[in-house]
């Protein structure tokens, strides 16, 4: 592999990992916020346990979203300084707004939510998770706006060999953004709904003690996934009309992009048929259908697989351009980058992030298996077991 292939591989590995984790972050955040609101409204312990159990899974998943996101942000300067040199005056704006106006707030409020159990006033604590959700979706908007600029560079003209921003509003009304943002958000809700459905099916199948807890969660997951699937598929096809204007022949020129598109549609359509004609109509009885539960568990990873295929289709189909028809990937690479530098950083990032991703998924699986009775997030009582013992003996 030459240095360009290595740098592209580094971006693809970290980008795919990032997408796998943030798609679940986006999907679960509003669901946890809804559960927390129900708890605040009713005060029922069932809703508190649901908020803490699904919230803990959300939070464990969140860790890898941060780790991979850090590498993504700094990688532009490391390997692709040609991009900031040529288009930084335009492309940098949505990224700067994302970090300051969205992620800065998201991270701060997430800290307040995680560590604010039993400390913050009830409704302010609920407000934290809604602000986390809101800022996470604002992040998605700005990142997709930046990505859509690469697909279809609007709102900028070239002056003196560099792009200059002429119309910021055009970045937000970009045809490459209008239909793809709801497509991605739908896919995130779909993934979040499926994780909830699959984990609940596991507990119902094992006949654990929390029958009421997981009956409700399974139904909630199926309903959210059904809504997500409608949005995803609808806005997926809606992209084709506009795509013909700015990237005609996207999927015929690059076989890998065409394959990604085909497999994504295969997974998406099959699951949508299943959701619309079986799972959703039977949602009331589904928690009692023991034979169906292993199937529901097995289906859980499929939205994630479809998301990766969709990402391949969108990104590979733009080759050899980094900014469509303006800047090639080769020209965007940092001048002076050597194979030795990228090989070393690629091994470091892929090794550390790959290992931590496996650990993270194992920890999520363990948190699901142990169930709602042993959740660390928001656990009440003193930290020190020595202090807890006398309390228990009373």
């Amino acid at each position, binding site marked *: 592999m030459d240095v360009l292939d290595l740098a592209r591989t580094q971006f693809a590995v970290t980008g795919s990992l990032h997408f796998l984790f943030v798609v679940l972050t986006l999907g679960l955040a509003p669901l946890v916020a809804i559960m927390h609101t129900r708890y605040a409204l009713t005060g029922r312990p069932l809703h508190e346990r649901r908020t803490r159990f699904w919230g803990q899974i959300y939070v464990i998943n969140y860790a890898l979203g941060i780790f991979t996101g850090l590498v993504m942000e700094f990688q532009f300067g490391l390997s692709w300084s040609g991009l*900031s040199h040529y288009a930084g005056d335009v492309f940098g704006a949505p990224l700067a707004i994302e970090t300051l106006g969205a992620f800065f707030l998201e*991270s701060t409020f997430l800290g307040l939510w995680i560590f604010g159990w039993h400390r913050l006033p009830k409704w302010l604590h609920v407000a934290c998770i809604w602000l986390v959700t809101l800022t996470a979706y604002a992040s998605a908007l700005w990142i997709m706006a930046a990505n859509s600029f690469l697909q279809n560079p609007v709102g900028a003209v070239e002056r003196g060999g560099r792009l200059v921003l002429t119309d910021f509003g055009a970045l937000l009304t970009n045809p490459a953004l209008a239909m793809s943002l709801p497509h991605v958000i739908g896919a995130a809700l779909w993934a979040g709904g499926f994780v909830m459905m699959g984990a609940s099916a596991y507990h119902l199948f094992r006949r654990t003690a929390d029958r009421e807890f997981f009956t409700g969660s399974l139904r909630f997951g199926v309903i959210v996934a059904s809504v997500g699937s409608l949005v995803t598929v609808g806005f997926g096809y809606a992209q084709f009309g506009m795509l013909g204007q700015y990237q005609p022949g996207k999927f015929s020129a690059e076989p890998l992009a065409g394959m990604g598109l085909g497999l994504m549609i295969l997974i998406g359509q099959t699951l949508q048929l299943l959701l619309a004609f079986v799972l959703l109509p039977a949602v009331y009885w589904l928690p009692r259908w023991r034979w169906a539960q292993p199937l529901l568990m097995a289906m859980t990873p499929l939205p994630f697989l479809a998301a990766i295929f969709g990402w391949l289709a969108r990104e590979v189909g733009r080759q050899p351009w980094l900014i469509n028809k303006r800047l090639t990937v080769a020209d965007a690479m940092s001048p002076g980058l050597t194979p030795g*530098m990228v090989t070393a950083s690629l091994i470091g990032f892929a090794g550390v992030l790959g290992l931590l991703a496996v650990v993270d998924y194992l920890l999520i699986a363990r948190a699901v298996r142990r169930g709602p009775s042993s959740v*660390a997030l928001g656990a009440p009582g003193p930290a020190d077991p020595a202090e807890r013992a006398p309390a228990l003996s009373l």
Partner: protein
Amino acid sequence: MDILWLGVLALLLIGYFALEGFDIGLGLLLPVLGRTSRDRDRIVAAMAPFVLANEVWLVAVAGVLFGAFPAAEGEALFGLYPLVVTLLLSWIVRDAGLWFRRRLDGSAWRAAWDWAIFAGSAGLALSWGMALAAIAGGLSGPAVGLPGLGAGLLVAAAFAFHGWTFASWRLPDGPTGSRRTGRALLVSACVAAAPAAAVAAATAPWLLERAAPAGTLGVLSVIILPFTPLMVGAQVWVWRAFGPRSAADRMPSFF
């Protein structure tokens, strides 16, 4: 307008050192102050509610660099390639230690991730010292060298002092065996932020030459400035909610 964004960039960088400095410092001191697992739990629990609100300042630094000083972003990050890579890997390892240490029972699991917190914090402090030395030297020499290592040790010492002061403030008579006032914490924050402030001042002319055009900076100002009260408010709220009177020891910590 470019002066305004230079100020924002400098404030974010200095704020990162003043805030994240004590997290990194406590990570460095973890093997010293936390000889027993209970003490390590207390130290991590003391800094845990602040970490997410502190480390995000550096994410904001990189964002502002890209948005408002795009030509500097590519030059600086590429010029510091090996250091940026070690900085990111150290950051990730430190954060992984925090997020994962309590996710399984068993002392070996927790002790292993506590070492990850120490190693990551040490890597962060050394990478920062070397990076600041290389930036001060105009990115001309090799990124890794003996003067850089000296600067790394200096930054590590400043962070450790700040971390020790924070622990004495949040956990009076706790693992450090002493107590410090909020005023002392302010002083140690200034010590931790001094290297960043010096380098920010030295590089200001170089950065201004690389500012984005007025049109881009205008858009950034119009969109970001309305959010600043919320950003400041959220940061202040963290300190009000998790200050020393919040009985840091009474609740089990998530980290």
